[in-house]
Each structure stands twice: as structure tokens, then as C-alpha cells.
């Protein structure tokens, strides 16, 4: 997204003043000091981004949503906590949280960071002159954070090695669907429950939810037989290559500025065994994405902080935003059956990560019956 100039970040459209939210006055939500012409004095004690639990701001009218949001993944970052706690030892947790606070804590969304301004992780700045956006503009909010993977995949911005670009997800082009066509406000606000991870609970959104695709064995698609539908997630047949990241390390400069280094990403399509097989996600094979974590990602903050690194695959359950009706792997039976290129085999896994991925590696590539 194009950066905003400093003044654009704080300029308020006069039409905002005619809206309901302006009735409370600036100071009721943002604090500061009223009745002065001195800018420094006026800004004393100012709160740029009111907390969702503040009973005098969002909670005042949107109590149910802002209360639920405190337990949503976008706010409490429980997804990070789940994977970090699984990969670490309890005795190292406090030290790990020092790293988390320095590098990851900023990546969460308050009410305002979707409905009023750009996310803080993108240096903030008011959206539409402070006029609250009931549906956040996806290009200024969602993809500001979910940029290098979701945004580039969904909009077809990833380049092929052989030239050209991977196609955009059909839901975006020609579908023209924004993030919110699938990801509902209930999901974003956390009003559907308190989850430990984004793939915790029902598969939501789901390709086959009411109003979307009706798929059943015997419909007019030849491969939609009982075996394929039971064993493969939709994305295993209908997504194309997506991004994989490796070897992220976080550290600080001597004066305390946090930064990270991550290896160049790679584009690939890999089906593996389902690491989250459950009644909600019953498929045996799903696309897997290599997540950027490495055994020594937090080495700057302490030795072996990911003590239980092997307890969780680094090739993680994925639902790529690269959906196509016809894909390389579903173009013919032979394109998938007996083709090791589309499956995650030992050859794809780094030696030091073999133990972590034991459960998701495909040992015997399915052949034609």
C-alpha cells in the first residue's frame, strides 16, 4: 500500500464531525488536554489507539463485539502462543516472551486499527479522515498485515521463475470478492468463540458453506467421487503454487531496535498428510506450507528457546489463496497420481527438520489404482 504522508495520517474530514461518533468529542476517546492552543499541551496524555476494553470508548456502544474481540486471534494473538508454547519448554517461556514483545506483539488489531486507521504495524494513519469504516477497506487494513503471502497469492502478484506471474485466485479475478466475502465479521471479531489457532474449531470459512459451492459425489465433476472428496481437501486439487518461507531470525541492534532476517521465499505446491486431521478437517491429504520458523529463530534471546522444536511440523496445514478450477495437479489423473513433485516427500524436507515433519511426509505417493 502506498505510504501516507505525516499530515494525511492525522487529517480529519469535516464530514466526520457530522457523524454519530463525533458526538462524544475528541477527548472522550483520545484523552489529551482540552481548551488550549498549545499543540504540545493539547497532546499531553493522548491515546492514539483506544483499547477495546475501555468502557468509555468502543465498549460504550459495541460492548458485545469489543468484549469478544479481546479473545479473538486478531487481538490476543493466541495462534502465536499456541505454536510457541508447543515448540518451547515452560522454563524458557518468559525469555521467549521478551522476544515476542519486541518482534511480534505489535501485530495485533484493535478496533480502531481496522475501522478507523491503518494497522500500527503499517505505521498507522487515519482511513478516510477518521470516518469509521463499518467494513474495513481490505487494501488498507487486511493486506497491510497479510501482505506477502495472502495478498500476493490472492491478487496474482507472485512471479514465476520462468517468467510471468501465477494467476490470481479466481475469487479475486474474475470473482472480485473482497476478504469479507468469506471472512465474516463474526470470525474477525471473535464472536464465534475463543480459539487457540486459526484452524481450531469448525472449518470456517468453508468452500461448501451455505451460499457457496455445492459439492457431492456424483455431481458433474468426474473427480468428485467419494474417495477424492473424503481424502482430499478442496485446496489440494484447486490451489496452485503458494509461498513458503524459511529461516527467520529475530534480533536487536545495540541500541535496542528490533529486526529480522528471513531467507528469500520460494513458490511451490506441496500436498502432505493432514497434520490437523479431525472431524472438522477429516481429509488425509492437504496442502502444506513451510512456515518461517527455524530451530534457532530466537537464538539471539537465549540458547535453545525452541526446545521442543520437533513437536510440531514446520510444514503446516494451509489453505492457500490461489484457487483455480483447473490446476496442474487436477489436469489429468497422471498429473497427480504417481507424481512426487506435487507431494511433500523426504527430498523436500531439510535434514534438521525431518523429525518435526515425520507425520506429514508422504512416504508412498498415491498411484493410480
Amino acid at each position, binding site marked *: 500500500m502506498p505510504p501516507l*504522508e*505525516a*499530515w494525511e*495520517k*492525522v*487529517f*480529519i*474530514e*469535516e464530514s466526520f*464531525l457530522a457523524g454519530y461518533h463525533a458526538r462524544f*468529542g*475528541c*477527548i*472522550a476517546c483520545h484523552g*489529551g*488536554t*482540552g*481548551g*488550549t*492552543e498549545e*499543540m504540545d499541551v*493539547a497532546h499531553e496524555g493522548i491515546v492514539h489507539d483506544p483499547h477495546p476494553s475501555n468502557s468509555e470508548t468502543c465498549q460504550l456502544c459495541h460492548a458485545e463485539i469489543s468484549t469478544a474481540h479481546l479473545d479473538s486471534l486478531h487481538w490476543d494473538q493466541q495462534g502465536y502462543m499456541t505454536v510457541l508454547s508447543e515448540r518451547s519448554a515452560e522454563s524458557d517461556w518468559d525469555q521467549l516472551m521478551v522476544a515476542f514483545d519486541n518482534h511480534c506483539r505489535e501485530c495485533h488489531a484493535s478496533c480502531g486499527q481496522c475501522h478507523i486507521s491503518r494497522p500500527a504495524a503499517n*505505521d498507522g494513519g487515519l482511513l478516510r479522515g477518521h470516518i469509521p469504516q463499518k467494513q474495513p477497506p481490505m487494501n488498507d487494513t487486511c493486506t497491510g498485515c497479510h*501482505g*506477502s*503471502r495472502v495478498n500476493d497469492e490472492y491478487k496474482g502478484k507472485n512471479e514465476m521463475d520462468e517468467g510471468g506471474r501465477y494467476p490470481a485466485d479466481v475469487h479475486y479475478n474474475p470473482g472480485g470478492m473482497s476478504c469479507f466475502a468469506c471472512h465474516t465479521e463474526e470470525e474477525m471479531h471473535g464472536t464465534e468463540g475463543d480459539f487457540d489457532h486459526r484452524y481450531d474449531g469448525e472449518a470456517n470459512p468453508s468452500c461448501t458453506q451455505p451460499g457457496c459451492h455445492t459439492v457431492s459425489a456424483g455431481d458433474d465433476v468426474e473427480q468428485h467421487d467419494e474417495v477424492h472428496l473424503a481424502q482430499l481437501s478442496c485446496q489440494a486439487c484447486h490451489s496452485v503454487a503458494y*509461498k513458503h*518461507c524459511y529461516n*527467520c531470525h529475530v534480533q536487536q*541492534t545495540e541500541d535496542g*531496535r528490533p*529486526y*529480522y*532476517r*528471513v*531467507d*528469500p*521465499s520460494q513458490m511451490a505446491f506441496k500436498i502432505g498428510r493432514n497434520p490437523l486431521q479431525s472431524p472438522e478437517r477429516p481429509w488425509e491429504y492437504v496442502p502444506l506450507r513451510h512456515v518461517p520458523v527455524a530451530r534457532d529463530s530466537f537464538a539471539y534471546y537465549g540458547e535453545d528457546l525452541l526446545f521442543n522444536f520437533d513437536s510440531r511440523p514446520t510444514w503446516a496445514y494451509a489453505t492457500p489463496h490461489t484457487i483455480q478450477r483447473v490446476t496442474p495437479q487436477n489436469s489429468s489423473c497422471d498429473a497427480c497420481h504417481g507424481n512426487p513433485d506435487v507431494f511433500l516427500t523426504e527430498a523436500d524436507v531439510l535434514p534438521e527438520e525431518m523429525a518435526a515433519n515425520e507425520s506429514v511426509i508422504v512416504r508412498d505417493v498415491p498411484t493410480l489404482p
Partner: protein
Amino acid sequence: MPEQAWGIWSCYQVDPNCFLGGPMRRTSLLVVLVVGIGAAYMTGCAPRPDVTPGAPPPTPVTRIRSRVDEEVDDQSLVDLASRFPLSAPAGDVEVVNLDDSQCIACHTDKQAVQDLAVEPEEEEELSEGEG
């Protein structure tokens, strides 16, 4: 059945509202009159004995203790603050100035924010790779 009672019954059979203008109405009015006179006599129409009212007690005066505790000499004044479970407001409550007219005047003035907003100092990008 006596004739009058039969008359009431037959009246009711023809028109359930007939009591309002029939024999029942006369009986009801008589009963109401007797009860009303009795009640009026018992509750105030009877002559009152002569009574001389006494002096009223002093009127309670609300007094909120200030932060500077002062001795209250006048015991006739009742400190009402002690009657309430919450402490009385202190004399030095912080008053928040909610006048945001200057906030609005400045932040809606494009020229003013352009003049005053300061671009953050460019920092060398230390991170490498896609975030």
C-alpha cells in the same frame, strides 16, 4: 323464588346490565351511602381536640467535609456525608477540560496539519526478507 328475586333474575336473563337501572341499583346506592357517612365521621369529620404544636427540630443542613478537615462546632448541623456509604466528593476533584474545539479546529485544517505534522525520521531498514 320470591317475586322480587325472580324479577332480578328475569331482568338479568334479558339484559345482564339491567342492575344499573333496576332494583339492584337502589339497594347498592343505599349501602354506599351508609358506608360513606360512617367512614367520613371516623376519619376527620368528627370535632378535633385542641392541640398546641411543639417547636420543630432544627432542619438538617448538608455539609460535605472538605479535604481540609475543619472542626464542626455547631452540633446542630448534621453531617449528612456520614449517612452515605460512599465518601463525599473531595473539594479538589480533578476537572477534565473536554473542550475539544481546538483539536477539531487544527485537525480539520489541511494547511495547519501540513504545516505542523512532522515526517518521522527515516531509519535504515535493518530487516531483510518478506515479513
